[in-house]
């Protein structure tokens, strides 16, 4: 860690070279899934206000397309992007190359085969009807086996680290690497292999869904924020000594909070109550994390103009705060009674998965990919289109879904309003939702085009280093002491 600048630089380049192809392919398949899942999502969204659209075919009925889209986005886009980003960051922070990357291609290939079969299985009628576990049973083993390879690479890279300190991002990545397979395997066993009885099934399902979002996607997004902020701003995380407390507090309470999804459900009332208590207790770590992250950016907002990654990470942090506030609100019984089963519930998961996680991955991609390929993004216009669509679409969807869900909940609870009138009142909002998703989709297409230019050898024009000017003091050398042994900046 006390090596001179240039050797640190060489080391980083060595790491990037070792990670180049696996990470590029993970991001490439993630983006393909983002488009495919987005297309399915648009078809499903259109069907809500145009029920006749593509309704003659069994494969494209709403009940199949909607979960297929969700699965394609979560397991196709979300997981692939998290793998690519996680492996790269783990190697960087552990100051060691990503070894035997060939095996990662095997895992990548099988993971994507598994997701493809799973999505086709849902469309073809083999759905299990458990949220986010809809993929048919035979896919489970393919996914778990290929995940085992990827997870093992991440953990091995961590355990052969050449650094003395373990940085916050590494805790989150390391934890997530274990939580996902455990959650997934346990949920599969308890729901499909040896199903638990009756009302226990929703409990297991809620535990899994909450865990997947809160112990996989959220930690990966936080790992990105904890890494890129100090890296790009060239200053340590503010109040970093509180970060370990926030980490443990966050993950322990999140693990218990799954029951909060079952308020009002036919399960013993202690289950949702425990979940709600878990969510209330989350306030402390969320405040700490917000202090850490926003405190680091505070006063440096001018740097946002120079770094796309920083802008996306900031969006992701806002998404994190919003998602946490919503999570808290959805633990309050009186509020839940109104907005339960409406677009509002959709908003909770969308905020974690899209506004918090996906935007963090976009930010990471804008940082990592030019460094791996040693090229520039071809079109600044497409980059602008991407970030513009993401921010605008995100704002519109958040506000729209929140208002529409609130409205829908009031109508649903008012028995004087016929059900069909609730539907009629919601049709404009379903159309609004489609418009928001179209906007996001446009941004994704723009990003994908730029990615193709960047990653494919056809474009040999640009061989310059990344477009984003390295900020001064980009932690290439030894960091100034922060007053204690843990450094706020990763290597």
């Amino acid at each position, binding site marked *: 860690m006390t090596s001179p600048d240039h050797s640190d630089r060489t080391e980083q380049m060595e790491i990037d070279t070792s990670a180049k192809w696996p990470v590029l392919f993970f991001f490439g398949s993630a983006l393909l899934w983002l488009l495919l899942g987005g297309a399915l999502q648009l078809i499903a969204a259109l*069907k*809500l*206000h145009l*029920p*006749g659209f593509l*309704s*003659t075919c*069994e494969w494209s*009925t*709403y*009940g199949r397309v*909607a*979960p297929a889209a969700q699965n394609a986005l979560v397991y196709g886009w979300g997981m692939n992007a998290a793998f690519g980003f996680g492996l790269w960051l783990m190697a960087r922070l552990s100051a060691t190359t990503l070894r035997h990357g060939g095996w990662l291609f095997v895992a990548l290939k099988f993971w994507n085969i598994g997701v493809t079969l799973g999505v086709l299985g*849902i469309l073809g*009628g083999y759905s*299990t*009807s*458990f*949220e986010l576990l*809809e993929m048919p049973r035979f896919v489970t083993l393919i996914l778990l086996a290929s995940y085992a390879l990827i997870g093992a690479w991440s953990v091995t890279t*961590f*355990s052969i680290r050449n650094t003395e300190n*373990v940085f916050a991002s590494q*805790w989150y990545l*390391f*934890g997530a690497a*274990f*939580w996902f397979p455990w959650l997934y395997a346990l949920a599969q066993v308890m729901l499909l292999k040896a*199903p*638990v*009885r*009756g*009302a226990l*099934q*929703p409990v297991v399902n809620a*535990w899994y869904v909450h*865990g997947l979002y809160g112990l996989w996607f959220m930690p990966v997004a936080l790992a990105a924020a904890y890494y890129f902020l100090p890296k790009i701003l060239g200053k340590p995380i503010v109040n970093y000594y509180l970060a370990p407390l926030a980490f443990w507090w966050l*993950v*322990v309470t999140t*693990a*218990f909070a*799954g*029951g909060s*999804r079952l308020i*009002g459900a*036919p*399960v*013993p009332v202690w*289950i949702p109550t425990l979940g709600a208590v878990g969510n209330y207790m989350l306030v402390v770590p969320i405040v700490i994390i917000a202090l850490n992250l926003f405190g680091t950016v505070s006063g440096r907002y001018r740097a946002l103009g120079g770094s796309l990654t920083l802008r996306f990470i900031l969006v992701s942090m806002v998404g994190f705060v919003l998602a946490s506030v919503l999570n808290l609100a959805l633990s309050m019984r009186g509020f839940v009674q109104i907005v339960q*089963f*409406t677009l509002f519930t959709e908003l909770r998961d969308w905020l974690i998965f899209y506004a918090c996680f996906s935007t963090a991955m976009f930010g990471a991609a804008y940082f990592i990919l030019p460094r791996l390929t040693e090229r520039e993004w071809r079109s600044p216009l497409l980059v602008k289109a991407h970030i513009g669509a993401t921010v605008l679409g995100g704002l519109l969807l958040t506000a729209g879904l929140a208002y529409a869900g609130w409205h829908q909940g009031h109508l*649903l*609870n*008012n*028995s004087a309003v016929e*059900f*069909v009138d609730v*539907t*009629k009142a919601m049709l404009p909002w*379903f159309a609004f939702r489609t418009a928001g998703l179209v906007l996001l989709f446009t941004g994704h297409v723009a990003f994908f085009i730029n990615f193709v230019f960047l990653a494919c050898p056809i474009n040999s024009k640009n061989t310059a280093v990344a477009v984003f000017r390295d900020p001064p003091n980009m932690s290439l050398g030894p960091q100034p002491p922060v007053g204690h042994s843990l450094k706020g900046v990763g290597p």
Partner: protein
Amino acid sequence: MKNGLALFLGVFATLALSWAGLLLTAHRQLGSLSQFKDPVDDVLHPQPLSGLADQGRLVYQDLGCVTCHTQQVRQEGSGGDLARKWGERGSYARDYIRDTTVFIGQSRIGPDLRNVGARTYADADFFYSILYAPQSKAPGTNMPAHTFLFDVHPVAGRQPSAHALTLPSKFAPGAGLEVVPTRRAEALVAYLLGLKDTYDYPIERSRNTPAEKPKEGGH
């Protein structure tokens, strides 16, 4: 936090605790719920689904009905489920022990279906019609038509089917054609007709509606 092993143990404990605390504890409490024998007529409740209805459950599952329809009636005082007559009472955990797969759902783009078989309008014809042409029974709905669950064939040259749907001319496929439910449609409708929690368990009633009589409520 420099020690990888300590980190691993903490990570392991996080999930193990929540698994044991939430899922195992719930399993201990709910896992052995049994049918209840009515003291008056010695009938066991909830009654198991018929074979055809159980096949219908698989159709319900593969078509993803759960994406838009919940199957849970919230208790009195929580939301407007009872006022909407979606059930005579809130759902109990015991209602679900007969269900091989539980579809409590989380979205009400469509109405709740937990007691759809008990509603006054609910008969096989109603369900066939709303599956084939939703607008014929609920004008303005955004429910998709499930025409693929039906065979449409010409009447000419064969005996008309006894199961053919009687549809208003606006929704009928045309003169000389009849719409006959497939086996899957029959199974699905049998399942929907079987969805009714009309029996009120005396033991559950006392357990699920406390805190009303003594005005203070809390213990």
